């Protein structure tokens, strides 16, 4: 089991190495250098925002759920942070905490609707996202609030060529890996995603596990919102959700080898998925490929990657004897 999981993760990091190598060569032929400081900074800067969202998304997808509201949650959190801070450096902590609290509450709402009301997660989180969008668009006509300069550093400062936000993302990713590997709730998430009925019968509190995953996902979106607020210097809702960040995050998770049907995958793979997307974006940017072509390539790459994973999955299930048994049973059942 653990060997198998290692296999998939190793494959993804191999793919990442391949993308970096091919990208580096392509840029070199074009007369540039992918590994110049400016390009590395660009690459790592791209990882943090998608990274935060994708980390939380990994948890809910592992539980066989989904969160389409993260873009809106991030927008709401950035609004809450910026309006609470309102340019006063003394209120930074208060603003950040308020943003995380609101984002966590949104996650809790998602989790409650999914686990207690039994609503399909696609519909539940899409609905919650639309409610937030309606609220933000009605309440704020444009940017609002002001982020103190001290907090804006979170968006811009960096150590050597690695932005602080990326370091925070990697630290949270490490914490997430630990959480999934070494805590009881982490193990329960795999169980719930693998088969919720079996998990429940084995004594796993499936509802509270789902709630935890959704709350954490919301809070990760809250961190993403803080980053947005720090980068823009103000709370700006439409900027945040018109980019469809949630789809980017899902793409990174799926690219990272986590099954959309839950129960298998992990955060290490997601980080690789985020990096692959960031490297691709930087390469396209350096080579000045038309931004619209990027979408086309990205869509094609995601489908291809999932098709390859599905093939691996398929050859594995084909070995299971259960289908053969079902077939013979049906045969003998005939008069």
């Amino acid at each position: 089991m653990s060997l198998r999981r290692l296999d998939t993760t190793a494959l993804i990091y191999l793919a990442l190495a391949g993308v970096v190598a091919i990208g580096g060569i392509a840029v070199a032929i074009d007369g540039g250098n992918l590994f110049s400081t400016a390009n590395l900074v660009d690459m790592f800067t791209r990882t943090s925002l998608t990274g935060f969202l994708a980390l939380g998304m990994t948890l809910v997808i592992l539980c066989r759920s989904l969160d389409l509201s993260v873009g809106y949650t991030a927008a709401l959190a950035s609004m809450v942070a910026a309006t609470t801070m309102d340019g006063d450096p003394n209120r930074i902590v208060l603003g950040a905490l308020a943003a995380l609290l609101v984002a966590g509450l949104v996650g809790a709402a998602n989790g409650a609707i999914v686990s207690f009301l039994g609503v399909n997660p696609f519909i539940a989180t899409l609905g919650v996202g639309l409610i937030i969008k309606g609220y933000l668009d009605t309440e704020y006509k444009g940017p609002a609030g002001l982020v103190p300069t001290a907090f804006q550093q979170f968006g811009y400062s960096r150590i050597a060529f690695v932005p602080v936000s990326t370091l925070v993302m990697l630290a949270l990713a490490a914490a997430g890996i630990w959480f999934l590997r070494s805590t009881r709730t982490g193990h329960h998430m795999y169980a719930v995603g693998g088969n919720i009925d079996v998990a429940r019968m084995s004594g796993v509190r499936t509802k509270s596990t789902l709630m935890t995953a959704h709350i954490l996902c919301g809070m990760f979106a809250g961190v993403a919102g803080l980053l947005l607020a720090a980068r823009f210097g103000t709370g700006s809702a439409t900027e945040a959700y018109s980019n469809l960040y949630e789809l980017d995050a899902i793409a990174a998770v799926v690219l990272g080898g986590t099954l959309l049907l839950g129960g298998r995958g992990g955060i290490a793979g997601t980080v690789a998925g985020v990096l692959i997307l960031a490297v691709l974006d930087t390469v396209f940017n350096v080579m000045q490929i038309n931004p619209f072509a990027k979408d086309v390539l990205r869509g094609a790459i995601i489908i291809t990657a999932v098709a390859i994973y599905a093939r691996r999955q398929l050859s594995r299930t084909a070995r299971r004897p259960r289908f053969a048994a079902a077939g013979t049973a049906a045969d003998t059942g005939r008069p």
Partner: protein
Amino acid sequence: MGRIRTAAAALAGGGTGTVFALLAAIFIAVAFTNPGFFEGPSLMAFLKQAAPLVILAAGQYFVIVSGNFDLSVGALVGAQVVIAARLIDGEESRTLPVMGVMLLFGLAVGLVNGLVTTALKVQSFITTLGMMLVLTGAIRLWTGGAPTGSLSEAFRGPGRRGIDDVPLIGQIPWAVLIMIGVGAAAIWLMRTRFGRVLVASGDNELAAELSGGRVDTVRTVAFVLSGLSATVAGVLIGGYAGVSAQVGQGMEFTVITAVVLGGVVLGGGRGAVVAAMAGALTIEALFALFNQMALPSTIRPAAQGLIIIAAVAYAAKRRTRRPVAATATTNANPS
């Protein structure tokens, strides 16, 4: 007495009947705020505006009832309108050939969605999400960002005009006739062998396969039908509203909302196509009601979100209660 009770149960059951009850309730509310709404011309105007969503809902129903999603329809509608404008470029004589090209394109997109989902075993969520990215990117790449060209008068006919000088009603729009035609065809299709296999494959893939249903074939056909419905909707929307880069944006979520509101279960196997189309009509009626109440348009998404969560939660509650009762009775008399 018993019949009244079954009728009441059908209306409140969260299934097919509920959406009609909901539609009636909204129409009554509309009648109170604006008694003139049900006079011929304004009712026809409403139906004309609702027609594209109803047609899309029929297409999406086929995909959802067989256990998949089609997230690419919004992008496909946009692509079709842009393709039409670019290829026709104001020339009346090109109208019919271009409509043929559009049909082929819709068919091809549906076929690719279907084949990638069934043959390559990529989840439809990812397939159609990738298709959405590819379509939006490709269309913008092709037109350089902004749509060019213009539609011919003949092309705009179906979306704009109708049979004039009908007593009482005034004008019967072509869009309404097309909507009725598509609806009738969809209902007929669901009564054929194809329709039954489609529902069976959404309900229990393995059982459908073992009983001789060609699951992969009918699922692929469902995607093709969705692509074709997006083409027809594209013609109507293009004719009605003209060409812009935003056409179709976000429509995939509205149409999925509509289908789910009609009591069709995500994951497949349950629900009627009439109810899906009624769901689309309900959403349009609701937006009309909002307009009359002079609510800001920004509040629409919030209302849409609330309604969809409430509707699905209601249906889920009803559904989970019934099987519990069923298992209780089987447990009571073990054989």
